[in-house]
Each structure stands twice: as C-alpha cells, then as structure tokens.
C-alpha cells in the first residue's frame, strides 16, 4: 500500500512537471510584448501629459475591441462554423454543405464589425499621433519589438553630437552606394523589394497606390544617387524619412483604414495594461525618480561601481568609421532606374577580386537583408487577428543589428508544436 502511494505520488509529480498550461506560450508572448512596449516607452520619454493622454486612449481602444468582440459573439457563429467544419469531413466535393452560405454571411459580418472597430481605433491613432512630437512618431514608426533595444535607442542623439542617423539609413546608403553595374542589374528589384516590405507593414495597397509609390521610389532613388555629397549629407535624414512615405488612408484594398504602428504599440491591449502602471510609477508624487533623487550620493562615482580604466592611448581606440567622401555623383535621367554616372561609383563594397556573381550574391544575401533589417517587421496579416491585438511579428533576425525579437519565434514554435503553420512562413500575406 505504502509503495503504491509513493508510486502514485511520483507519477503525479512527474505529470505535474510535464504539465504545461495550455496558454503558456501565449502568456510568454504577452510578457515579451510588454517588455518590448516598455523598451519603447523608455525610448519615447513621454511627458506626464502625453503618458496620461495615451493611457486613456489605449483604454478607449480596449473598450472598442471589447464592444466589437461582444458584437461578434452576439452573431453566435460557432454553431454554424462547427457544423460547416463537421459537414466538410463527409460532404462530397461536388455537393458543398448548404450551411456554407450562411457561414460566409456571418464571416463577412464579423469582418465588417472588425473593420468598423479598426476605423474607430484608427481615429484614436490620429489622436495619439497628435499627442506625440515628430521625433517620437519617428521612433514609434521605426521601432521593432525587442527584448534588448538597440544601443542608440537607449542613448539618443546627444547635445553636441554630430551624427543622427535614421534606422532607414542602411536602405538609403545601399541605394546611394551600390555601384552602377550592380544597380543596373538589381536596382529595380531592390526598389520592388522595399515596396513589398512596405506593403507588409501597412497592408495590401491598391494597384494605383502601389504603382504611384513605385514611381515615387524610382524617382527618389534617382534623386538619392544623383545628389552632390554635401547635399546628401545635409538632407540624408529627410531623404531617409521620405523613403517610405505612405498615405495610410484610402490606400488599402479592404476599404477600411488600417492602423499603423502607433496603434500596434500604444493602443494595443498590452498598452492598456502597461501604460497606467507606467503613469503611476513615473508620475505619481513619490515617483521612482524622486526616490532615486532623494538617495543620491554626493558624487556619481560614490554611487556606482566603476569598471577598470582602459588604456588612454588613442592608438588603441576603435577604427575610424567610414567618413563621407568628397566625390559627387553626376546626374542622369530620372526615367532610368540606373541613374548614376558610372564614373561616380562611390561604392564601399570591396572591388578587388570580385566577380559579378559574387557581387550579385552578396547584394541579395547580405546587403539587402541588412539594409531592411530594421524595417521588415510585419505585425499583422489577418484583419480580425490584427484588430484584437493578437500580435504576431515577423522580423529579420540579425545579431549584428543588436535587437532580439523572440516573440515571433516563441509563438511560431508554439504553433508548430500544435500542428499549425506560423504566419511568417506565408509567402504572400493575406489581404486584411
């Protein structure tokens, strides 16, 4: 008897050790998403007024989602859906189940409710956008979900510092610095690639809008490549910003406005949870900052342990990063996709012993992914999934770019374990 009890206890403990809550992966993903959001908030330096306003709007967005969710629940689609599913097991191919028409109607209605909710949230997004400075909007637009934020994100441009580079800068540099021969072969494809990434970001564009954007990109690339070096230096941040100008209204095939990254991060269900806490911690009278201030030591060196000093010899310093060149590329016709005068090749790419094939391979395998590494975050493919804040990000994972997005990997792994197929395997994202 005693042995049996011990055996049962061992079995129970073993079972407990292996039992994983069904929503464990979702929970992990949720915490990762909150970490990511906190990283963003730390980089935005919201004022008290801004933080409170956005927290309110995030709550409002949550209410809109709850309302839409309730409306969809009232449709009571589940019996019809399950009946269609069950009938599909046995129905003959030439005789589709009659219930299908009803299910399509219900599904369309659910999409309509969702679209209306998205429109409402998009209006809230406008309010958030108005509450943010231009610089903050740019940070949100360029933010990529991460557990470890990039160094320059934690240390933004400082007083007296010469360089301020956008995260779009790698794409800008690739356009400008690709040698003429390589650009002739791949320039248009690269611009199409940028367009594709943009479309993944903002949703499927209408044909007209896509064509307009394509033409604009070609012109913009021509401008970037023909500019004199001094003009490029002065205007590079603006050029980078203009690279992905998309009118987010009236551009999507679905007809509804799609919400952008401001909603994705600051009006998400995670934001509705995180922002009130952020406001309470940072802007209450006895804030964490005030506590730190009260306990501050007379000198910073007393307060913090210091690392061992490094050699003060300038010769031991890291190598000088690439500096701008004096050479200015010559202009050519904007109608051409390969706009740079061959003489003005300012490539930073190594030329020696390089064959065309090597250069082509390197262009697509290394330079292109790197240039778009910080852009290709594709949070949503599915309209309803999107609207309810079930985030599902896709990123280029590149250690050199110093951000780590494991959210998609965890959730993707969870889906694979459950026999599903993570959406980042989808080659042609579904239309919202």
């Amino acid at each position: 008897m005693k042995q049996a009890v011990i055996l049962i206890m061992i079995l129970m403990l073993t079972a407990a050790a292996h039992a994983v809550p069904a929503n464990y992966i979702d929970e992990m993903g949720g915490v990762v998403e909150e970490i990511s959001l906190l990283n963003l908030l730390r980089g935005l330096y919201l004022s008290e007024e801004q933080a409170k306003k956005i927290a309110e709007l995030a709550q409002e967005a949550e209410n809109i989602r709850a309302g839409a969710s309730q409306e969809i629940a009232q449709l009571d689609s589940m019996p019809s859906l399950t009946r269609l599913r069950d009938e599909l097991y046995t129905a003959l191919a030439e005789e589709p189940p009659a219930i299908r028409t009803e299910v399509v109607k219900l599904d369309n209605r659910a999409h309509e409710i969702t679209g209306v909710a998205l429109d409402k949230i998009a209006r809230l997004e406008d309010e958030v956008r108005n509450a943010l400075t231009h610089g903050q909007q740019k940070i949100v637009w360029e933010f990529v979900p991460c557990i470890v934020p990039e160094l320059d994100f934690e240390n933004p441009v400082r007083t007296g510092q010469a360089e301020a580079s956008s995260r779009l800068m790698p794409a800008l540099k690739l356009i400008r610095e690709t040698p003429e021969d390589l650009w002739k072969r791949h320039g248009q494809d690269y611009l199409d690639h940028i367009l594709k990434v943009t479309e993944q970001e903002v949703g499927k564009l209408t044909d007209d809008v896509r064509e307009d954007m394509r033409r604009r990109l070609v012109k913009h690339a021509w401008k970037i490549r023909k500019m004199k070096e001094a003009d490029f230096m002065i205007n590079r941040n603006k050029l980078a910003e203009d690279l992905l100008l998309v009118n987010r209204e009236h551009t999507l095939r679905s007809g509804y406005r799609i919400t952008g990254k401001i909603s994705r991060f600051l009006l998400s269900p995670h934001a509705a949870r995180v922002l009130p806490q952020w406001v309470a911690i940072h802007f209450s009278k006895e804030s964490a900052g005030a506590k730190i201030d009260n306990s501050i030591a007379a000198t910073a060196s007393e307060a913090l342990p210091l690392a061992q000093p490094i050699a003060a010899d300038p010769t031991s310093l890291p190598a000088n990063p690439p500096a701008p060149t004096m050479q200015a590329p010559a202009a050519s016709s904007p109608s051409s996709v390969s706009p740079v005068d061959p003489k003005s090749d300012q490539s930073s790419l190594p030329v020696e012993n390089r064959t065309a094939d090597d250069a082509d391979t390197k262009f697509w395998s290394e330079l292109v992914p790197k240039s778009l590494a910080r852009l290709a975050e594709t949070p949503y493919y599915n309209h309803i999934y999107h609207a309810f804040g079930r985030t599902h990000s896709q990123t280029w994972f590149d250690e050199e770019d110093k951000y780590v997005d494991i959210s998609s990997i965890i959730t993707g792994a969870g889906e694979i374990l459950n026999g599903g197929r993570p959406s980042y395997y989808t080659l042609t994202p579904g239309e919202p």
Partner: protein
Amino acid sequence: MKSENNFWSISRRSFLQTSALFAGAYALSSASKLLAGNESDFPAQYVLQLPDGRLQCQLCPNLCTPAEGENGTCRARGIRNGQFTSLVYGLPCVIAVDPVEKMPLFHYHVHGPALAISTAGCNLVCQYCQNWQFSQKSPAETANFAMSPSDIVLRAIDMQLRTIGFFYTEPTIYIEYMKDVARLAKQSNIKTVMVTAGYINAEPLKDLFEVIDIFVVGYKGFTEAFYADTIAGKLDPVKNALIAIKDSGRHLEVVSLLIPEKNDDMEVFKAGAEWFVKNLGPDVPWHFSRFVPEFMLKNLPPTPNGVLETARKLAIAAGIKYAYTGNNPGQEGNHTYCPGCSKKVVERLGFKVLRSFLSAGKCPDCGCQIPGVWLDDLPNGNI
C-alpha cells in the same frame, strides 16, 4: 524682433549680388585659393614671429610653434612653405541640419533648425569627446567638402535656415573661415552661433564679437586639475573668455558636462557655481549635460539623472535663475521656469520646444521678463 520678421526681405538676387561682390574681393586677395584636396593654404591670422624667427600661433592658449611641415596641437593649422597656414579654410568635414537646442541654446528662439558645420581638428583633447572621429584628426585624415563661405550661406538660404552654427569641434581653430562665413551671414540676416570651449585668446575673441551673435561656451570643469588631466587645457583662459563674452553683451549660454568621478564632486561644483554667479551674473542660462561613455572614458558609467538634478538645485541655490539638465529627455530640468512665480513658461522634450507660454519674453502670470530672444509665433514649439 522686427529684423526676424523681415528676414526674407533680402531677396536671393540681392544676396547673390552681395555675394558676388564679396567673392570678387575674395578672389582678388592673395589668399583666395581653395584647395579641393585635403588641406587648404589659406594664410593663418593671429601669428607672431618670435625673436628666434619661429612663428607662433596666438589664437589660443596653446601658443604652438610648429616647425616647417608640422601642425599645431589643433591639427588644423600648421607651417607650410614658411607660412602659418589654416589647413581647413573652406573644408568642413561635417555639414548637417540640427536644432539649436542641441547646442544647447534655450534662451534664443529662432525659426527652425540651424545649418551646422565643423572642420577637422580641435585645440583640446577631451577624453570624453563624442566627436573624436574628426576632432582628433587633421584635415588630411578626414573626408572634407570644398565649400567656400558663400557656398555655406547660400546653402542656408536655399534651405530657408535662419541660423548657422559653428559646432561639434572647436570653431576657434578655423577662425578665419568662421569669420568669413559669419560676415556673409550677417549681411543676409542669418544669425550665427559659436559653440566653443572658450579656449581662445583675448584678441581673436574680441574680433569675433563683431560677427558672431550667440556664444554657447563649455565650462567643462571647475578646477585647473580637471582641465589639465581630462581635456589637456587650462581653466583660467576659459574663465577670462566667459567674462569677456558676458561683457561684450552678446548672447551667452554655458554648458557643463558632468562626468562621474571626474567633475561631479558637488563641493567643488558649489565653488564653480559661486564663481559663475559672481562673474557672469544670475541670468546667464547654465546647462548640465549627462555624460555618456565615449572615446577614452568608456570605462565610466553614464551620469545618473540624480547628479544632474542635484547640480541644478545647487546652481539655483547659488543664485542662478536658469539652470537646465540635458541629454536626459523628459525631466523637470529640461523646461524653463519663471523665476518670479515658478510657472513653467517653456516646455521642452529633448531638443524640441513643445510649448512656449511667453509673450514678448514675459511670463504670462506675473509679467517677469525672461532674458533672451523669444519668438511669440513659434509654431506650437519648433516641432
């Protein structure tokens, strides 16, 4: 204020005419050649021939006497063909558009950002320099843009920028170039800002008062030992420069980067603050910036916000009316408060002015005049 409103009263054509005249005079002068290469051969000013025949640069307290083919400490001036030469005239290595708040300049509102330029070289060796990639280099080691003074001013006009900043490295080292740019800018009603360590001798500084509108001076530390150990300079000349600028009536703001273990001893700081109030008065804005590990001081931690706030409080206690913290966006010390009623009169976030409540530079609540140049029509800040 009137001149601000009439800024664009000078047309591009009249500017071009002025520039053409200037360029003609410039071309006729013996020192007109701009080298398109890495070094210019513009004759340096402020040079003294010593009794033994050597040439000594009188521009800054370093008083360099390089031999033929050698450069001074700043790397931007040297002896070429027996002549003391500015090696960087017309050869900026950095040209960018930046908000003036980045300099930092808080009490002088301008419409929009500034065109900022810098050449290679510096007459100091700050161990924490964040622009060391070109401040500790000679023009032969950097990639430069061949831009004459009129090129710079025309570029500013084309981009509708109303301010030109001499920034990032020590502008003193390219004083000949700076003066020519500033002179042309003045003719075109463009304001000029010199962001300097104040490590300059009295005579060249006096000449700058004629052409530079605004000075932002780095009061980098509060002891001679700090200047000697950390930035390879001397404190006294900087103090003299600060007093001279103050006395000149030009707009002055002061910035101090507080570095853990180097210049964050609050007892020493108090003495520095007392000197500041006694010699510069309570109205000169003083910015305390957060250090972020750079160059030779990567072993030190960033300055905690608490240290910046403590310094600000001590400065206010010493009598300074406008003390700010910087490089720490979102903090109380980023804003301007009325010394009369403590109302927040200018609200900032990072380098952005979010809101200005001032009317003709006066507090809307108590009417206290805030020193500086203020624009009432700053469009919801300079966002």
